[in-house]
């Protein structure tokens, strides 16, 4: 069983919350769910935004097909016109569209909503109709409505139930149901990518988060603002992104795990401070949720075009780490690693996701709590002898014992100027020797970090004829594609910088035909692999118009590629 349901209507008319109700219906039944929304940078209007819910009885990784859906719920005429042809079954307001035929289920949505008490409940009528179509008991809905509207009073819940029942009965009487059955399991948590990151941060002991709102990173701020204070986390809405990251660096210097989050535009403003963190060797985690660029670009649409920027922000050479979680579940654990690496090596760590990742929701399985082991690195909390203490002591790994304010004897000035082991500025004179050893000390950390980096993981059976080379969230649709097609596997990069060279080279050399799949124009992973490994991935499939890849589209693209090879 694998169904996709697309709800479409005007932005601002509750498409998303209705979609969430549908998604929660399935997650509460213990099924696997994945959701995706496509919308515009406008608060109200846009008549055909959509929210897609995919449900399955086996593990799924993406939103499913793009060009065909099983059920369309069209909440207005435009939505009907836009998507009816791709749907097996369409539920729509019979007052909007006068059409009959196979798979067309006209329901007087507005009329029923009015009858139940208010026209805004038209979406609930449609959900009731969907329940009938899928043969789901309305008692599941009642629980969800109670959660959503419970604090508004029992009357609202009752009215909504009445609305749903009208939709339900209408379909039951006039159309009957689809032939599907849903195995039941215990309810599963349903979380978005942004929530996975924020939860990961909470579980990792992050105690400070500062950010300036920007799609698609804002949901982290919202979530942490609500949950953080319960666990001693200070959450600040800063005056801009420059302030946000500098606050995080200050908090981290004071001894707590700290992070900031933004999208490309905000991260552009943060560059100088990323260099500061690297120079003063203060750990900081930056959540970078990409969206379409350049400039304001596509504010509400996805892209993966900030990979190279995240590896090379700011002036000068310095160590930085870039991790791009590949699935929402992976997001939870990647954040735990990000905080550990940041503290162990006293470096900035980027957690690189995108709008598709942050805004999609999925059900997750059992959490492996053992993967949240906190490793604080060389953190000194007991008194030291000031005359002897050197904050930037030269060590084999390049990592020096770090004191934090409050530790007697550990006083030092962390400076953005080049400095000596003690932390004194050397820039009032020419000190090439000190500069060399300090530069080498910082850069040396990369060699040790590299050993902790995980090689690309192989998804699917080894020895497949074609290997799709991907990174970050594109892994999600690609994994679904590999699962449902013959002859393909995927090499998935999560740890992007520094690359574990030998292992990555080996993995790439074991692949027969390689095709890079990326959501950007230039093929930034291809460029990175060429730069870091000298490997050329000759073939690439890219898109840069604000959509993630979808499993059906991948099938078509790959078919065309194979044909092209046959011809030449």
């Amino acid at each position, binding site marked *: 069983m694998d169904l996709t349901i697309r709800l479409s209507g005007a932005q601002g008319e509750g498409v998303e919350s209705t979609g969430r109700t549908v998604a929660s219906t399935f997650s509460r039944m213990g099924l696997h769910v994945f959701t995706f929304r496509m919308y515009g940078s406008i608060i109200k209007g846009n008549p055909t935004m959509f929210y897609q819910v995919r449900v399955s009885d086996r593990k799924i990784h993406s939103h499913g097909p793009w060009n065909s859906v099983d059920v369309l719920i069209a909440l207005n005429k435009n939505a009907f016109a836009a998507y009816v042809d791709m749907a097996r079954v369409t539920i729509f307001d019979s007052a909007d569209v006068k059409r009959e035929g196979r798979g067309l289920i006209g329901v007087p949505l507005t009329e029923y909503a009015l009858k139940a008490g208010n026209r805004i409940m038209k979406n609930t009528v449609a959900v009731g109709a969907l329940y009938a179509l899928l043969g789901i008991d309305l008692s599941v809905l009642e629980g969800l409505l109670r959660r959503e509207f419970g604090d508004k009073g029992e009357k609202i819940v009752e009215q909504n139930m009445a609305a749903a029942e009208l939709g339900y009965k209408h379909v039951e009487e006039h159309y009957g149901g689809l032939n599907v059955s849903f195995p039941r399991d215990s309810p599963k948590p349903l979380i978005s990518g942004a929530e996975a990151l924020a939860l990961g941060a909470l579980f990792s002991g992050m105690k400070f988060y500062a950010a300036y709102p920007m799609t698609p990173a804002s949901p982290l701020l919202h979530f942490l603002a609500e949950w953080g204070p319960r666990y001693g986390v200070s959450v600040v809405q800063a005056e801009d992104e420059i302030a946000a990251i500098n606050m995080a660096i200050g908090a981290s210097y004071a001894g707590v795990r700290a992070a900031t989050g933004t999208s490309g535009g905000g991260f552009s403003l943060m560059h100088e401070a990323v260099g*500061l963190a690297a120079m003063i060797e203060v750990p900081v985690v930056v959540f970078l949720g990409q969206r379409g660029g350049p400039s304001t670009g596509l504010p509400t649409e996805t892209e993966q075009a900030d990979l190279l920027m995240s590896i090379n922000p700011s002036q000068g050479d310095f160590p930085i780490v870039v991790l791009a979680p590949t699935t929402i579940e992976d997001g939870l654990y990647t954040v735990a690693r990000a905080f550990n690496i940041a503290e162990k090596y006293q470096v900035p760590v980027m957690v690189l996701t995108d709008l598709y990742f942050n805004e999609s929701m999925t059900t997750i399985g059992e959490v492996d709590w053992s993967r949240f082991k906190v490793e604080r690195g060389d953190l000194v909390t007991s008194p030291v002898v000031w005359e002897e203490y050197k904050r930037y002591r030269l060590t084999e790994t390049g990592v020096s014992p770090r004191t934090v304010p409050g530790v007697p004897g550990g006083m030092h000035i962390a400076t953005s100027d080049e400095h000596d082991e003690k932390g004194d500025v050397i820039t009032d004179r020419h000190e090439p020797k000190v500069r060399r050893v300090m530069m080498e000390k910082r850069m040396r950390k990369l060699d040790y970090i590299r050993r902790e980096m995980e090689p690309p993981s192989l998804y699917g059976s080894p020895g497949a004829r074609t290997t799709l080379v991907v990174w970050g969230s594109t892994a999600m649709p690609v994994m679904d594609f590999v699962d449902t097609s013959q002859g393909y596997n995927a090499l998935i990069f999560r740890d992007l910088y520094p690359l574990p060279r030998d292992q990555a080279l080996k993995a790439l050399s074991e692949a027969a035909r390689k095709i890079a799949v990326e959501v950007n124009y230039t093929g930034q992973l291809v460029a990175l692999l060429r730069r870091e490994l000298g490997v050329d991935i000759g073939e690439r499939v890219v898109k840069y118009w604000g959509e993630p890849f979808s499993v059906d589209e991948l099938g078509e693209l790959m078919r065309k590629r194979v044909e092209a090879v046959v011809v030449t």
Partner: protein
Amino acid sequence: MTVKIEVRKPAEYAVARPPIWCPGCGDYGILDALRRALAELGIPNERVVVVSGIGCSSQLPHFMKTYGIHGIHGRALPIATGVKLANPDLTVIVMGGDGDGYAIGTNHLVHAARRNVDITYIVSNNQVYGLTTGQMAPTTLKGVKTRSTPYGSVDDPVNPLALAIASGATYVARGFSGDPAHLAGLIKGGIEHRGFALIDVLSPCVTFNRVNTYDWFKARVYKLEESGHDPADLMQAMAKALEWPTMDPYGRIPIGVIYRAERPTYDGEMSRLLKGASPAASPIDNALSEGPTILKSFI
């Protein structure tokens, strides 16, 4: 009558390395005053964090035996805000130049003031860019020739004190580095004050500012505490703040506490949200140990 005991000596906050400022630079007076203020308050070295931006004046933390961050140009206030919020028990001092605070960092000044975060911000106002060798500063008086204004500046100067009061700062003062004892009192008052304190210091740059010299200031400064000023009166305070340079750039210059008010601090409000916990003092694994329960709310 209480007898004032000097708990510690200013030298206890000094490092062996002498400052690297030009001889006669106003910043020596600020350094001296800051050490005196800390000594009088007897704050342990390890509980003090001195944060700065970039500029001649921002070198100051390097001459202090305390914790500190010599950060990036204009960003000292957000860095310091992070330090203070993470561990509100620390005494956080910020030091920077007028370019650092009133040009590139103005945004942060406005917001740190409005939040009333409990830090003490000392600005070395030398009315010129020292470190970058003598360009116009946002405090340079109109008509003054600098390396970037060879025909005389056509910009009107900013009024940092009026700006700070309007932004919500709760302790606003002006000092003169030619009078370190008086300045030490102002800094001490700023540290003791709970809330955002701005102490703008007339601090001559003897190398690049040939107009606003020690003598120039000596001829103009007068002490507010000797002139019946009431710092609790907002309107009086605003009038005093506007006196120089806005009303008369070549007129008399009030020094002392211009404005003082009581208002909840940002760190205090944050601590209220955190039910008394502070990030530095709360257990690192408190959310993890409730992980399974937290996840239940996503069902």
